């Protein structure tokens, strides 16, 4: 997979993630990099209903579980190195839209 293709995949994933708390996304990415996609997806599915988490954290895992599952086939075919790169690009895309709307915040 070329860099452009990895960026494209990451962008598609990030564009669909909504209501994801940055710290939870990072924790999930860290877990996924150590334990692999399948177990990380199981974790997200489990945590989305966990009563021990705050509502925002649960929402984060709900969105991660749903979006990552829809890209599971693409992600599962990647090498470990490419998988980590895609997650890294997705993190950047996920928060890139903050910067663009910051000007709108200051306007209000």
């Amino acid at each position, binding site marked *: 997979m070329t860099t452009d293709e990895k960026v494209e995949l990451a962008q598609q994933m990030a564009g*669909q993630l*909504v*209501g994801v708390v940055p710290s939870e996304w990072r924790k999930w990415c860290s877990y996924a990099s150590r334990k692999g996609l399948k177990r990380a997806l199981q974790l997200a599915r489990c945590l989305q209903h966990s009563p021990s988490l*705050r509502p925002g954290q649960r929402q*984060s895992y709900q969105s991660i579980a749903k979006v990552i599952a829809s890209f599971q086939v693409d992600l599962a075919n990647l090498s470990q190195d490419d998988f980590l790169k895609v997650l890294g690009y997705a993190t950047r895309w996920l928060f890139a839209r*903050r910067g*663009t709307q910051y000007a709108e915040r200051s306007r209000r």
Partner: protein
Amino acid sequence: MQKGLVDSMIVMDYDNAFEDAIEWWERQLEDGWELHISQVSLMEMLKGIAKSPGSREKAFNDFRFRIQEIRKEGKIRRIWPITQGISKIAHSLLEQYCRRFTPPSWCERMESLICDMLIAATALKHGLFLFTENLRDFQWIDSLRVEKVDYEIEGGGEMT
């Protein structure tokens, strides 16, 4: 079931993954609130979405997808359009504002004021409580039930 209309900035902060906004929104739902938004808020957000990096078409499609998703999950109960009745109320509110205060000369602030009046009018028309980050923009409207959210976003552009 209590029903509230969420102001544009809160929707923007939720979509932009600000933890406090997400926590606030999810907590309201757990507390039994039914949350609504105005079409005006989505229109206000388009300006920021258009500045997203990458393909603009894709950014708009993604935004539409995210809004559909949170609607499907019941996190937004309804998106209220601007109707004739709402625009009449908004016009009347703006007139009251201009009688009591000096309208801002800055074009973009005036644009925001008009959006605020349409949002306030939507809340009044449908008997909704209004949640906002900018209480000052709405608290002069006597008949409006309005509350400031219990968080504040500092900075805004930083990744935490």
